[in-house]
């Protein structure tokens, strides 16, 4: 491999990206838009979730609970239900996204045993909303819990363990004990990187075939490796810049707590970038049309990354077969890593499994891409 040739290609590619509106849009606008749509949508759009109320007790305390929900900014009462069948029907028809179910003996049980549970049933078709609504409900119940405790303590001088357990019906997925945004935003970063990285590189070789410039290029002594690393270099830099933007937004705008080391974050991000760039490049080498390559890159990254990375659909609730497939999705490892680095402050060593998985992935993809390129018109 010759550095001079590699740099010549990297420089040329940079100029072309700079002058290609489509590449620029993918590199610059896509992260901004996606971060806004996925990350920001999560926190703001979901005020005033339509709520059905099914108060089976109808006591002073239960009405107080309902009031806490309906007077908050987060929920808006759309119906009052009387029977279990009403509840079914309301959820099935999509009349409400969440239903607050207060059991018959709510206050009695609470005062007698010191604990009871409310139930919030959620329509999880829109998981984002469901996740967020869960978070809101938890917040409200925690407040209720605290107030009840304070009252009880004032009256009896001892604490109860509280009512603050929100049970969720079986149709609901939720993230235990985590602020939904903290949970989702790192996943968003992974999706954006996967999308941008594979989209950008999917165009790079196919464009040369489509425009006929490949014939001239392969008549020179350039090698496949020089071409690959030369072309990947500018995209790698762009990918890292996009990652810095997204991760920065996650930490400073969405206030996802960052407890890990920057070095670990950068290293693993670079690794993931290499994987997704490699996937796009491999497709670009194989498929000689820009449209074809970018469509397949989209299909191959967007769907598995959103569905199977655990970004918002927890994997352990999926069928075994689907879980097995998810091991093939590189974003799965990166999402795990991001969450661990951000929320738990994990070290490389703590995350040895996903890190090594990504390392293997990167090696396999890059090797496959290098071998797929043929300096030939045959």
């Amino acid at each position: 491999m010759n550095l001079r040739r590699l740099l010549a290609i990297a420089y040329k590619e940079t100029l072309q990206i700079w002058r290609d509106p489509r590449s620029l849009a993918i590199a610059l606008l896509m992260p901004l838009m996606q971060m806004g749509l996925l990350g920001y949508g999560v926190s703001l759009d979901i005020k005033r979730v339509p709520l059905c109320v099914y108060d089976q007790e109808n006591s002073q305390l239960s009405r107080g609970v309902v009031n806490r929900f309906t007077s908050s900014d987060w929920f808006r009462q759309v119906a009052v239900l009387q029977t279990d069948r009403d509840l079914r029907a309301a959820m099935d028809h999509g009349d409400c996204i969440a239903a607050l179910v207060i059991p018959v003996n709510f206050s009695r049980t609470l005062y007698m045993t010191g604990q009871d549970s409310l139930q919030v049933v959620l329509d999880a078709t829109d998981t984002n909303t469901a996740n967020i609504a869960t978070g809101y409900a938890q917040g409200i119940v925690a407040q209720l819990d605290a107030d009840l405790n304070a009252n009880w303590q004032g009256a009896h001088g001892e604490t109860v363990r509280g009512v603050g357990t929100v049970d969720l019906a079986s149709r609901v997925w939720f993230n235990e004990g985590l602020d939904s945004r903290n949970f989702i935003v790192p996943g968003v970063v992974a999706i954006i990187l996967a999308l941008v990285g594979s989209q950008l590189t999917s165009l790079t070789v196919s464009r040369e075939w489509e425009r006929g410039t490949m014939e001239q290029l392969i008549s020179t002594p350039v090698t496949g490796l020089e071409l690959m690393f030369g072309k990947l270099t500018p995209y790698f830099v762009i990918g890292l810049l996009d990652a810095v933007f997204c991760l920065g937004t996650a930490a400073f705008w969405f206030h996802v707590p960052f407890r890990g080391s920057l070095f670990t974050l950068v290293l693993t991000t670079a690794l993931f970038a290499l994987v997704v760039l490699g996937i796009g490049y491999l497709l670009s080498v194989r498929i000689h049309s820009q449209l074809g390559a970018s469509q397949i890159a989209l299909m191959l990254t967007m769907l598995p990354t959103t569905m199977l990375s655990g970004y918002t659909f927890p994997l352990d609730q999926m069928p075994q077969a689907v879980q097995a497939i998810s091991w093939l999705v590189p974003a799965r490892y990166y999402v795990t890593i991001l969450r661990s680095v951000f929320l738990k402050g994990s070290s490389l060593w703590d995350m040895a499994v996903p890190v090594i998985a990504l390392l293997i992935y990167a090696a396999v993809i890059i090797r496959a891409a290098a071998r797929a390129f043929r300096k030939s018109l045959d």
Partner: protein
Amino acid sequence: MNGAPPAVQARGLTKRFGAFVAVDALDLDIAKGEVVGFIGPNGAGKSTTIRMLCGLLRPSAGTATVAGYDIVREPETVRAHIGYMSQKFSLYGDLTVAENLRFFGGLYRVPRAELKERMAFAVTMAGLTGREDALVRTLAGGWKQRLALGCAILHRPPVLFLDEPTSGVEPEARRRFWDLIHSLAADGVTILVSTHYMDEAEYCNRIALIAAGHLIAIGSPGELKRRDLGGALVELESPQPGAALAALHGAPGVVEAAIFGDRLHVLLAPGTDAAALARFLVAHGLTATPPKPIIPSLEDVFVRLVSRKPAPEAA
């Protein structure tokens, strides 16, 4: 071979696409410093041959060396010693003139100390002085082609393959392009150039005629006209060219007759008397101007050679 090894040597070079034979057992020798014109109709196999010689297509059979290197075993060395202009324009339209040159200079590892001077030379040669920062897609055809040539010779390759470099270029630009080819040849560069234009063939030291994948003749324009026609060519005019052509095909001593516009070109077997031809036509009740000996054009030669060697049926 005398002394210097040939710049290009092909033996039995063959390319099949599936069952179709695009180039069939081609033998070719080109000496250093020669300008060889590669001439043939559409689909004759010119581009395919050139691509094989550049290492872009793998021969199905046969061998070839370029600048002394084997095209199959040492393709990278071959690539370092050739310049190639593909039939379809293939520089980067979204880069400027200077950026394209610098890019290919980098790929060919032109020594940095020399790059500036060579780029300046290429720009001057292409007539693009002052337009170094223009995007290449904004250039007109002739300039694009000369720039492509400039990119192909930045690394001073001893052998150049130019695939229809002048197609779609206006006559004046074509002439300028041939001047460049000759000045390169004068510096010892070997050039194989394909073309559709018969008039351009006359500018070549030698011409290789190719049809349906077969090399049917090779020689200097003069040689081809004298030797490969194999007889004397006469021209006559007739008000009934169709009937005259039909009659001539059975006439004694006529090897070949063809209509060229409003004239007939008739190839006579050696020793045939032209005056006898006139009498023959009159005897058949046809009027025609007296046969007039003419100097054959390459087109005549080409028509003659192609008709003599029928195309092998595509399997």
